[in-house]
């Protein structure tokens, strides 16, 4: 998957390129494989290698009980985060309201395309949380919200990152691939 992100806001503009290639499990560092095995999701895992502008990483994707899981690791197999697909009603009401308020202030009109809850921090804390074991400190929760909206006269897709309380952290503009060969 080639996705180009433009970092907006007060930060100087940066471009981030990612190319995603399917890889076999044997090509994945043992640390990453071990993490996924410990989760014991029991569903088929698809592994991808992502080539960014400044790093190479691995990603495991799977779907269980209609919920999408995405697990990211560094090129060496070190745990980075787990993203789990969510619906607006899965997000605490006050958090959802705060995120919606921010989006209402940012855009005249928008539509939420996708929500993912992002779990990062210590590997042990994330594993304990996902396996519903006694909590271990060090769990960091973020919300990744993909929104389609019109800005400066153009319809675009944006990826927003909010903290556990719904506070804005950053946003990226997703540059979409051409669709001419499907339209004409």
């Amino acid at each position, binding site marked *: *998957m*080639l996705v180009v992100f433009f970092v907006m806001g007060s930060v100087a503009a940066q471009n981030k390129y990612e*190319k*995603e*290639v*399917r890889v076999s499990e044997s090509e994945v560092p043992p640390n990453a494989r071990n993490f996924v095995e410990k989760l014991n999701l029991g569903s088929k895992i698809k592994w*991808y290698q992502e080539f960014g502008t400044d790093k190479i990483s691995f990603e495991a*994707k799977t779907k269980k009980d209609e919920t999408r899981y995405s697990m990211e690791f560094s090129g060496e197999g070190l745990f980075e985060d787990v993203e789990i697909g969510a619906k607006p009603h899965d997000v605490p009401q006050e958090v959802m309201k705060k995120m919606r308020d921010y989006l209402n202030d940012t855009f005249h009109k928008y*539509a939420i395309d996708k929500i993912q809850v992002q779990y990062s921090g210590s590997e042990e804390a994330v594993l304990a949380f996902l396996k519903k074991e006694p909590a271990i400190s060090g769990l960091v929760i973020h919300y990744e919200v993909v929104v*389609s909206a019109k800005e400066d*006269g*153009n*319809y*675009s*897709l944006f990826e927003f990152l909010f903290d556990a309380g719904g506070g804005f952290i950053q946003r990226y503009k997703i540059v*979409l*691939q*051409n*669709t*001419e*060969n*499907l*339209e*004409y």
Partner: protein
Amino acid sequence: MKRFFPISILLLTLAFAGMSQNTVQMGLLPSLNVSKKLPKDWSLHAKAESRQQLYRGDFDYAYLNTDMSLIAGSKISLNTSLAAGYLVRVEPDAVSHRAIQQLTIVNRYAGFRLSHRFSADQTFQRDEATEFRFRYRISSEFALQGQSVDPGEYFFKLNNEYLYSIQGKADDVEIRLGAFVGYSLKPETKIELGIDYRVDSFINSSSRHRLWFAVNFYQNF
């Protein structure tokens, strides 16, 4: 790459399906597509497409026509666009003109994209009644490596289109099925190679089958 095998089988099946019919025409249908993005979600799309017959009962080469079109489009949402344009068809002994209107919805999913195109066109030709056509096409593009089509990667595209046409008191239905293997050279450049199978005239008379070997080149600026 494992997906190439079933795709090749499908392409060959389509080819032989066309050859096994009684009234069959086969040939080449190359096209060049150039698009330019404009401010405020507007875009221009120019297309040149030539049709050459290679087979009609027996090997029989004939140049048939060249279509040249220019379509202007505008997004009305992230996934939906409205477009209208003009096409001129040059045949060895005639020229016809066509007005085109279309609405396209392109949805993105993990691993593939799906588009619905609703269109209408009106063809004008000297000494003939205007032909009105109403069309629906469903197309899908499947990434053969990774979750989406990146430069240096192959993809598979499948089209199915239904056309209803009316000219004077005569009307007809045409069904089209296209299967293409494509390659993304750069983010803005794609090439497709495949088969475009068309069947029509099956309501009021014996059906006509046409099978075109197509090469489509897309360049975006």
